[in-house]
């Protein structure tokens, strides 16, 4: 079964198949279609939909619903994502599952509603306070907008940690064919930690406060071990990297533009490949090194080198030439800009 559908709507379809129980959100372009679809589709399925008074309220409603062992989601962008960061920290601290979708727009400040990838650091490094991490998955197609939403819920439940689907306006607005998921995600038993208002969970406490420094430190160590254990969940795509002299690397909509560039450069006889991280946290370090080790690298992103910094951080080959082709402000990078930068690198121009 397939459906020709917008990326933002595919997110909602994914949420339905993931067994999401509730949507709490505040409208913001370019993420609003996710709320529109949830408002339309959740109530007939007996799921909750509530338009919150602000993003701060939305993320705390999610905190409440998650504390009761229910799966909830929200979608936002730019300023709204910033408002949610305190709540993300609390969700991580209290180890609650919840999924937030960030359809990135431009910034800083109000910016505009065009596509950008400037929320990379906020998403991947933990945008709120404290020593925590958010699971971050970056789709690059309408199919992945659905499938990775489901994966976000799956990992969020498995690790009791907030998960973030990091997409941008291109992926949200574009339409492609979506193959409908086979079946529903299996529900997990949260009775050991949730508070559902019943005898089984009466003794439970959902919180992130440990007054004793030693206990707070122990909690922190436990979280770090959990983040370390997530390494087995890394996801990445390697497109024609094996014999490549130059590897382009990009995530999200940029990776689609790079794929076109790789095909064109291959047609011109250049050995070029594309490495695409799908999980941004946990970062696919091993996959990246095996795809890009010993090769020149061209990072393509719609931000100010935030992703390139992570490439530098994770690439063990310290001598690698790492180029950057980037745009900001709502301008997409064109295939030609990527081609031009790649040709410069392949031909050894500065």
């Amino acid at each position, binding site marked *: 079964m397939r459906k020709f559908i917008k990326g933002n709507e595919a997110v909602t379809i994914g949420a339905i198949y993931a067994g999401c129980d509730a949507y709490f959100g505040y409208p913001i372009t370019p993420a609003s279609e996710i709320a529109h679809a949830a408002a339309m589709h959740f109530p007939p399925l007996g799921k909750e939909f509530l338009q919150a008074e602000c993003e701060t309220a939305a993320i705390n409603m999610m905190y409440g619903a998650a504390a009761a062992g229910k799966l909830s989601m929200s979608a936002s962008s730019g300023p709204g994502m910033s408002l949610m960061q*305190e709540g993300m920290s609390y969700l991580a601290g209290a180890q609650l599952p919840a999924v937030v979708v960030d359809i990135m727009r431009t910034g800083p400040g109000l910016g505009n509603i065009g596509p950008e990838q400037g929320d990379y650091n906020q998403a991947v490094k933990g945008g709120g306070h404290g020593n925590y991490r958010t699971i971050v998955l970056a789709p690059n197609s309408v199919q992945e907008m659905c499938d990775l939403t489901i994966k976000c819920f799956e990992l969020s439940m498995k690790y009791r940690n907030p998960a973030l689907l990091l997409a941008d306006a291109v992926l949200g607005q574009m339409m492609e064919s979506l193959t409908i998921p086979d079946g529903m995600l299996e529900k997990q038993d949260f009775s050991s930690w949730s508070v559902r208002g019943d005898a089984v969970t009466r003794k439970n406490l959902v919180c992130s406060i440990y007054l004793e420094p030693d206990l707070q430190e122990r909690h922190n160590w436990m979280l770090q071990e959990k983040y370390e254990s997530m390494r087995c969940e890394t996801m990445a795509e390697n497109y024609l990297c094996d014999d490549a002299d130059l590897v382009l690397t990009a995530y999200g909509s940029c990776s689609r533009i790079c794929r076109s560039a790789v095909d064109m450069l291959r047609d011109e006889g250049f050995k070029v490949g594309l490495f695409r991280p799908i999980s941004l946290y946990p970062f696919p370090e091993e996959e990246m090194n095996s795809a890009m080790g010993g090769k020149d690298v061209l990072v393509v992103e719609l931000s100010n080198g935030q992703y390139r910094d992570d490439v530098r951080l994770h690439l063990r080959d310290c001598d690698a030439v790492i180029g950057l082709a980037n745009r900001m402000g709502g301008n997409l990078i064109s295939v030609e800009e990527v081609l031009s930068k790649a040709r410069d690198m392949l031909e050894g121009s500065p």
Partner: protein
Amino acid sequence: MIIRSKGFYDEFERKGGRRRTTHYCAGCGHGIIQKLIAEAMVDLGIQDDTVFVSPVGCAAFCYYYLDCGHVAGPHGRAAAVASGLVRAIPDKVVIAYQGDGDLGAIGFNNAFQAANRGDGFAHFFVNNALYAMTGGQLAPTTLPGQKTTTSPYGRDVVNTGEPLKVCEVFNQLDRPVYIERVSVADSKRIKQARKAIRKALEIQKEGKGYAFVEILSPCPTNMRADSVGAAEFVTKEMEGYFPLGVFRDRSDAETACCMEVAPKTVEEIVDADYAGDVIADMPELRERRYKFSGFGGQGILSLGLVIADAASEMGRHVSWFPSYGPEQRGGSASCSVVVSGREIGSPTIDHPDVLVAMNQPSLERFLPTLRQGAVLIYESSVPLNVEVPEGVNVHPFPAARIASENGVAKAANTALLGCMVELGLLDMPEAEIAEALRRSFSAKPKLIDSNMAVFEAAKEYARKELS
């Protein structure tokens, strides 16, 4: 100090050790209030059903004492957390407990909106006219002239406003079921507070809606008084600004029910378009990149969608991407459609293979991007005064006229579709395109025949004039 109260844990293990004293200062109202809530919870038989949301502040540690399910969230957000909880467990009892900084300042809108929605929880608001835990600062409820650590010269109402009367504000809203202000400054008042707290919890047990109880409470430490002095301050000073009493009791009124929405299955919601799952690669199929552009309302986006739908139905790789953000300026709309036999790279198009332009701005913007071998179809009533790049095949086409002549002035886009079919630009059987055109009018079946007439007329024109 409170020992072995009904509804409290036997020992306060979360506090550390096997202690049975609370962490509250002597003369503080919190212990009394929590004891009243715990007792009511047991007496009403709702202990298993109750989830208690703590604030941040001195009462952050309610979970040391009350024997029920507990959630501790961010400063100010207890109401929002409770709003989420009541939607997750609508048949249970949810309590949110907040101080005056927590509810009256940082979290006021969350509390206010929860009250306005009538979210079904008991909302206990402890007003001691200051921030206690953080060191006795000015709260929204601080009295005029009252000295706090951040109003060392006394509260200046010209600069910081008058004490915030939350009961009076919430009493302007329609949905709250119960609103009362009480005090725990002396035993007579505690009796009334006990009644109010029970009432709020009964309303929850019976699922009647939102109940708000404000409780004036002494804080000897930050009121810089002994227990007696602090209680006197509450009664003599605070009650002057915050009169006690029941503001509203609609607990006997009939409870409103949510609007009914007809249930659907997941399959009905998803409403799949096509039966097959797999999109197989067709390496022999050339990739075509189409750009459609015109004024908003000329059906440009739908024209792209009909083609995308037909290709998708046939199991081809297709992407459709609308003009977006800065590109939409000037009232123009455009979309990019890529149809391919293999996985599509960029859904955006720098150099279209086919440009369909319906207005002057579209020609100005996109015609210069065409390269040798590309095709331009443009609405022939628009003057072509943009330089045509070398090697571009240009087809002026009277789409608007053909549409009007066939009785559907708005169907210029359908005419252009017919033209594209006739010029062989779609690499798909005509029947598939016609079927997709019919599908696009599934919500307005009356328009199918007239649009098919436009489609046929356009093909005929293109066959005679353009081939």
